[in-house]
């Protein structure tokens, strides 16, 4: 790869001409380190999961691990809980997220409110995890601030059966990071709504409701739906917050995987844990493919 070759290739020709010539053989070498790294450090663990899920401890091919995950009631119930918590928190998070994003987007893009909300949303959406769990324990735990405050005005959370270290608590904490994630995902789409569309609709006699129903909602629908899908996948894969809140004996798929992998059950059921892992990947892969398809629709108007 000499300097001359670089100059020759960078002549201001049209990109189509370059495309027709195909990819030069040496160019592949440039992404070899990246490809190799992904193959070893992502492919390696992934191979172990898939291989272990489809084989017995002796190494022969089996379907047993998967049939276990379908027939045993505890795994079915964990899957139902995981799906339920993902649907509930993504619908709640999506609804309030869109609402909040609308309120924030009307402030100018460089206003302090926007900066604080978007960086705060980034923290809560991606990096909250364990600290978030402890913030909720400090708020609604047995000796939490809100629990004590409510007791003063005559509401006893503990007596009413509420426990932050439960699936309800996990649901509440998940919603807490789903809302900011929706804000981050939907803000670019809201910014893409042109003021001219609003003016045109109003000029033709549309009311606010009419504008939202016939213009804004159809244009935003793919983006909102795509956001909901990502929220679903996010909640389905999440585990850190629930681990810190409840521990590994939580009735969610990740909890069962960790129990099975760490050997915390009587029988050696490593393979079942790996089969659950493959099922999780399949669910999230389906969601991501649907998201990618929707994204293509979403960018049609809001490029």
């Amino acid at each position, binding site marked *: 790869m000499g300097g001359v070759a670089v*100059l020759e290739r*960078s002549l201001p020709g049209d*990109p189509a001409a370059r*495309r027709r010539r195909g*990819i030069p053989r040496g*160019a592949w070498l*440039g*992404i070899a*380190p990246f*490809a190799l*790294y992904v193959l070893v*450090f*992502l492919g390696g*663990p992934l191979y*172990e*999961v898939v291989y272990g899920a489809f084989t017995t401890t002796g190494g022969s091919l089996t379907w047993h691990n998967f049939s276990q995950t379908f027939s045993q009631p505890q795994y079915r119930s964990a899957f139902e809980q995981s799906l339920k918590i993902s649907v509930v928190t993504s619908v709640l998070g999506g609804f309030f997220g869109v609402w*909040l994003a609308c309120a*924030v987007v009307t402030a100018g893009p460089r206003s302090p409110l*926007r900066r*604080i909300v*978007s*960086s*705060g949303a*980034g*923290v809560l959406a*991606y*990096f*909250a995890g*364990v*600290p978030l*769990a*402890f*913030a909720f*324990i*400090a*708020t609604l735990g047995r000796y939490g*601030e809100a629990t004590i405050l409510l007791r003063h005005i005559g509401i006893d959370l503990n007596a009413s059966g509420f426990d932050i270290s439960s699936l309800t608590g996990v649901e509440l904490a998940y919603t*807490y990071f789903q809302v*900011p994630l929706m804000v*981050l995902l939907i*803000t*670019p789409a809201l910014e893409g709504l042109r003021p001219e569309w609003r003016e045109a609709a109003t000029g033709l006699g549309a009311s*606010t409701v009419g504008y939202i129903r016939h213009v804004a909602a159809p244009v935003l629908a793919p983006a909102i739906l795509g956001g909901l899908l*990502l929220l679903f996948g996010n909640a389905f894969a*999440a*585990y*850190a917050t629930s681990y*810190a809140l409840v521990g590994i004996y939580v009735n969610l798929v*990740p909890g069962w995987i*960790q129990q099975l*992998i*760490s050997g915390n059950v009587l029988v050696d059921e*490593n393979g079942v*844990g*790996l089969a659950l*892992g493959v099922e*999780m*990947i399949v669910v*999230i892969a389906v969601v*991501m493919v649907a998201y990618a398809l929707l994204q293509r629709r979403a960018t049609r108007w809001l490029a």
Partner: protein
Amino acid sequence: MRRRRRRPRLWRVAILVLAAIFFLGPLASAIRFSLEQSNGRDGLGNYTQLLHDAALSSSLATSLEIAALTTAIMLSLMLPTVVWVRLRLPRLALVVESISVLPIVIPPIVMAAGLATLQSHASAGLSDLVFSSPLTALTPVYVILAMPFAYRSLDVGVRAIDLRTLVDAARSLGAGWPTVLARVILPNVRTAVLTAASLTVALVLAEVVIAETLLYTTYPVSLVNAGQAQLGVAVALSVLSLAITWMLLLAISFIGNRGASRARIGRLL
């Protein structure tokens, strides 16, 4: 829009107040909670505990080492790749980007399960080489987890500069590829690099599932453990973690070239 200024104000204030209660409530509670010391008086005792607690401070040191190494590997792997793809393989841009997003499809617990299986099957030699210390065992995986964030932010940065002209100019003046990357491209995309590095550090300091499953005591793992015995300290450290991460991201939104960086954080997924 402009004509209807007055009416939107009301619902805007309503939703912002509601959001403030829901989001700031737990944070304010956590701060209040963290100030209550075990002796009954209010103070910063829970915060200074980090300095006295050997388990916590040594795990923080471990995590910081992992964070530094992860960032270094991530940058030296991803920046050349991003540049190379934009320069020589533009047709593959979508493919490479899709590969870099793959870790999102694999939940951390599944990644952990795969690594734990690998760990239990590993030969003695591999075990000594890789799995004997959290630094060598976790760093390679964390680079993978950071890829979706890192690729996106670096790609935005590289796309914003006139890459071809810069590279051609440097090459025709006799610069080799390492020089081009380190002395021509790097200074031009330092905001993107800083963003990618901050996100990577934040990720390493937050990741608990893989470390816990593989039985390494990193900072977030010892934070969870602290929650069992000394809740006040765990809450105090949680407040610190959230505050520091938030400062990091807020700083990024200011140093970036105006509008672009906000979009950068917003469009990571």
